[in-house]
């Protein structure tokens, strides 16, 4: 990086120098225990170059500088990018007042016993790389950007963005706790948890899922008691199938129906019903209690109470077919037929028996009501809607789209969203924006979105301008969503 002067500490000059030499200038805060300065530096600078700038600003010898970022000491030979140092982040600085060299090791930090990290003492250190040898693994780790933490956590790629927020007064833990509290007081939410796109995103990664599940101590207990469970979990094919199904609601509906049909057949086999019940008791119950423990409450029993279940329900079995239906009854309700599984398919009545297709016995109406009208949930949603970035981050993962599609296909949710009691407009906008993930390359938006605009206003979003904006941001993915919504709204009694 060419420098025209080593004596001008002005930021502007530095910026010019840097700009002449390289790409992006970032502003990094350098913090000592006593002091704090913002330094502009080229994004691709080396640590040594960064230290040069810092030594000017802090009036300290470069050799005295020890830079720390995210718990690691930055070596001169590293680059800022290697450590993930980006615009707006903070690097910690220790200015060593070298008065004696420590014994041992050639690459140690110069020792200091002066009255504090004061500036500008002469450097008596013998080494030229002030990076202390503290035994931590450093250096050539791939850079970790603040918004893309470990890439394996693909699902959390967005969540790191989430973690980034200071959403009003609540941080994540609080939110999560809130949600759990809501769950406890409002059993229908349980199914919503399943539908939670965040949870769904995790589902899409079978390995991650398995890891997490297995890591859960209660699961571990369960697995010990019921080896079938671990068998299931360890069967990648099965998991994969399940994930596939989770993504594809149509397929799922189909399989649900098939399963229900099969179940009703099973019932008629002598002893078959008992077998089913037994399996249910053996396996389902412990799972439920484990889940219950997790939530510190008894949402499931409330769910059970939700139903007409008087013990004569034949369909709560577990079999080997991967057929989860997190979208529960609304899908089956919305399906054109229930294909002859009238006895076991979840009905659309307000009190729905737990069935294969409706694992938690959630009825469609209570589903909707439960989720959106509970005050905790609403406040959560409000917080989310107030912070569009959150939603954006949440949903910019690719597989999110399929999840949201499924959600969109849930007519109950759509109807809830459209209900006037909800801060829908904002939310809709943001939801659409999220879906887009910023893909806004649509020509003639007005024309293109004519239909959607009409539908939006039919649903009650009368701010055409805002709608348009949202739709523009939506892009092609939005079309898919809109197809779903149109399908739904044509069915809705709005």
């Amino acid at each position: 990086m060419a420098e025209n002067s080593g004596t001008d500490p002005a930021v502007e000059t530095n910026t010019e120098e840097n700009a002449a030499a390289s790409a992006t200038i970032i502003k990094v805060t350098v913090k000592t225990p006593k002091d704090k300065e913002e330094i502009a530096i080229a994004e691709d600078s080396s640590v040594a170059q960064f230290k040069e700038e810092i030594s000017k600003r802090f009036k300290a010898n470069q050799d005295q500088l020890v830079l720390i970022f995210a718990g690691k000491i930055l070596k001169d030979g590293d680059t800022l990018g290697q450590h993930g140092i980006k615009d707006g982040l903070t690097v910690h600085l220790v200015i060593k007042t070298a008065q004696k060299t420590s014994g041992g090791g050639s690459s140690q930090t110069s020792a200091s016993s002066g009255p504090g990290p004061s500036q500008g003492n002469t450097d008596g250190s013998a080494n030229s790389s002030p990076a202390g040898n503290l035994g931590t693994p450093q250096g050539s780790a791939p850079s970790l950007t603040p918004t893309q933490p470990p890439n394996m956590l693909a699902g959390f790629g967005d969540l790191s963005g989430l973690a980034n927020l200071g959403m009003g007064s609540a941080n994540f833990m609080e939110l999560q706790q809130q949600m759990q509290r809501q769950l406890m007081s409002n059993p229908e939410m349980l199914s919503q948890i399943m539908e939670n796109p965040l949870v769904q995103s995790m589902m899409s990664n079978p390995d991650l899922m398995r890891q997490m599940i297995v890591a859960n101590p209660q699961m571990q207990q369960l697995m010990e008691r019921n080896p079938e469970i671990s068998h299931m979990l360890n069967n990648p094919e099965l998991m994969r199938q399940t994930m596939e199904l989770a993504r594809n609601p149509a397929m799922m509906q189909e399989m649900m129906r098939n399963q229900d049909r099969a179940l009703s057949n099973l019932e008629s086999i002598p002893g078959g019903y008992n077998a089913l019940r037994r399996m249910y008791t053996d396996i389902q119950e412990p799972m439920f209690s484990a889940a219950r423990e997790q939530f510190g409450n008894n949402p499931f029993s409330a769910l059970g109470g939700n139903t007409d279940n008087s013990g004569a329900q034949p369909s709560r079995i577990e079999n080997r077919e991967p057929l989860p239906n997190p979208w529960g009854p609304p899908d089956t309700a919305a399906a054109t037929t229930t294909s002859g599984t009238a006895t076991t398919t979840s009905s659309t009545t307000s009190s729905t028996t737990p069935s294969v297709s409706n694992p938690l016995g959630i009825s469609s109406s209570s589903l909707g009501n439960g989720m959106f009208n509970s005050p905790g949930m609403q406040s959560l949603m409000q917080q989310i809607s107030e912070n569009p970035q959150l939603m954006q981050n949440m949903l910019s993962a690719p597989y999110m789209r399929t999840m949201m599609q499924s959600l969109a296909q849930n007519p109950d949710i759509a109807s809830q969203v459209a209900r006037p009691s909800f801060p829908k407009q904002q939310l809709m906008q943001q939801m659409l924006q999220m879906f887009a993930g910023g893909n806004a390359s649509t020509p003639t938006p007005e024309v293109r979105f004519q239909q959607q605009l009409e539908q939006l206003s039919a649903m009650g979003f009368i701010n055409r301008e805002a709608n348009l904006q949202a739709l523009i941001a939506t892009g092609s993915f939005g079309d898919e969503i809109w197809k779903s919504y149109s399908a739904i709204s044509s069915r809705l009694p709005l």
Partner: protein
Amino acid sequence: MHRLLTCFWILAGVKVPRNFRLLEELEEGQKGVGDGTVSWGLEDDEDMTLTRWTGMIIGPARTNYENRIYSLKVECGPKYPEVPPTVRFVTKISMNGINNSNGMVDARSIPILAKWQNSYSIKVVLQELRRLMMSKENMKLPQPPEGQTYSN
């Protein structure tokens, strides 16, 4: 079957808080939240489980730890934040509650580890250790030469 998986999902959903939490801490570590005397981050950026962290404590002034940079390893297990992390000094240090031969922080001797709450965090642990460096019982302890590390 799918009900089982449903339950799996729910249970897994409960795992989310741990990771949310750790991601939050990751962000904070990069933003330099706090007064600049402690720093923390993932030991390995590819650590998918967000388990192993490195921490740094800058020794407080007017103590025998002054101006030294202490490197630590912090491990957040699967039950974190319900249980405290395990903490270990990498840089040699002489301090009450720290094992002299391997740098392990004795959870019973450090108040916040002993009485852990899930609202505590890696930052809190590091700050607390730093605070303890300033305590009368620690601040004057003779320290090993700077830059030495524990062999493990």
